[in-house]
């Protein structure tokens, strides 16, 4: 595979929070390498605290890793790349003091889109997520699912080649997630963007991804990458198919052991913290 087919190259990235030996010290990621192809949707899945979001923030230039590097195209990532990468965050990152339309416009203003282009592009991306009628609502007046669609519209309006999504539906209920997942699959199959999507839902990963990268427990590194060979846009019927179930099961088998390990880690560290507090 030539470098041109790769949108993002992650090379031996390690990251730690805090100084070694201090109580806040956490080795979040260890020697992680990953190639992300142009136009694919790659899901990062793993136990909580395994460094999925850390990797996403390193790719997005919001976090400088302790070791290793990330290349976007041929550029070494040293900070946010607003022309190449747009973000959809887990929580609602819309500005509550601005309307939905103003939020989308602000994003383009930050990115440097000329004023005359902003309004039509904002209308277009709001139409794409089905929020045309809510352009003048404030985020607080929308449901959680609508807010995340608005956040997606803001990211789409930036017309970047890469979209990073950090558990964008994490705070939503199961039904809303399913519907949004379907809509997302339809929407994104049309745009040809490269997408990195962090989730902890197995079903979501299988339903959306071209490939799923499974993280190990902390210090996180990629244990295995599974290919989901099913054309986009995916139909709801895929979710009840034999293929879906068997993929989901093999993903579960891979993850199960890591989740156990992660839980043992967290109880161990809690016990250590309690001991520390007593002495």
């Amino acid at each position, binding site marked *: 595979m030539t470098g041109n087919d790769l949108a993002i190259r992650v090379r031996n990235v390690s990251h730690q929070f805090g100084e070694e030996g201090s109580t806040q010290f956490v080795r979040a990621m260890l020697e992680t390498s990953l190639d992300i192809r142009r136009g694919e949707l790659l899901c990062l899945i793993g136990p909580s605290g395994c460094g999925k979001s850390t990797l996403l923030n390193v790719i*997005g230039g*919001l976090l400088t890793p302790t070791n290793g590097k990330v290349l976007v195209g041929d550029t070494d990532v040293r900070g946010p790349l607003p022309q190449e990468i747009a973000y959809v965050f887990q929580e609602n990152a819309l500005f509550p*003091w601005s309307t939905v339309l103003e939020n989308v416009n602000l994003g383009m203003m*930050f990115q440097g889109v000329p004023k005359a282009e902003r309004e039509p592009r904002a209308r277009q991306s709001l139409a794409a997520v089905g929020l045309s009628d809510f352009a003048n609502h404030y985020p607080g007046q929308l449901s959680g699912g609508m807010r995340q669609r608005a956040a997606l519209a803001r990211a789409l309006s930036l017309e970047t080649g890469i979209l990073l999504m950090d558990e964008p539906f994490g705070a939503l209920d199961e039904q809303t997630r399913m519907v949004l997942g379907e809509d997302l699959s339809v929407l994104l199959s049309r745009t040809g963007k490269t997408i990195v999507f962090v989730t902890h839902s197995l079903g979501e990963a299988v339903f959306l991804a071209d490939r799923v990268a499974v993280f190990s427990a902390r210090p996180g590194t990629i244990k295995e990458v599974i290919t989901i060979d099913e054309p986009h846009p995916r139909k709801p019927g895929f979710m009840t198919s034999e293929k879906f179930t068997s993929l989901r099961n093999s993903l579960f088998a891979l993850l199960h052991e890591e989740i156990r390990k992660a839980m043992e880690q967290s109880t161990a560290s809690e016990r250590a913290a309690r001991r520390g507090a007593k002495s």
Partner: protein
Amino acid sequence: MSAEPESAVSKSAALKSATPKRDRSALGSRAVQVAFVIALVGLWYVGTTYGQISPILLPNPLRVFDELVDVLATLEFVTDLRITLTELAIAFSISAASGITLGYLISRSQYSIRVFEPLLAGIYSVPIILFLPLYILFFGLGPASKIALGVTTSFFPIILNTIAGFGYVDRIFVLSARSMGASDYQLFRWVLLPAAFPIILTGLRIGFTVALLSILGSETIASLAGLGHRIVHLAEGMDTARMFAYIAFAVAIALTLNTVTSSLEARARRR
């Protein structure tokens, strides 16, 4: 003191809950409030007309009303009011400008917030009126000592709310703005400022109120002119009816200013 930023969620909840039923109960409690004030004045009237209360200690409300009409008609109040309001305007301008500027600078680093916020909150809890004798020594009996006291009392709520406003902006807003390429100026203008604005506004309103209170108060303690000075002057001359008229006038001015600042705050918050 550090008012929570009014969240968008609670804003929409407030919109929905503005039902006619609530309006009626608000109207009801307003009627009780008015009735209470009328009853109080009625008691005052009955007590001074038919009771054994000395008119020097508590004059009849009708006499006070006549005096008030006279004060207003002769425009006698203008000089004192102008002095008090000038002191207030100068004191508030100084503390607003310095409180917001310094508060913003402190809020730029978590370290300086940790150092200065408890320090300022500590000084804020000291009864600042205790500095008045010192200020009179420094600045004399004229307006300068009143301005100094007004600045000292209103500076703290303003700077503390400014730190609370700028210092605790949700990290996700900053990250998302940065990821979209916001410059330092854009981050300030479109993220930090709108996030902090309602909280700073609350600080300004509190600062304004305490500045007015401390200026009126210090005028009654040691001064050459101003509304507070006039009230003490009349009390010392046993002219209690006119003194009460001036108190009523000062209360009316304070109420008006408070209503104006509160409605300015409410209007700015709605945006």
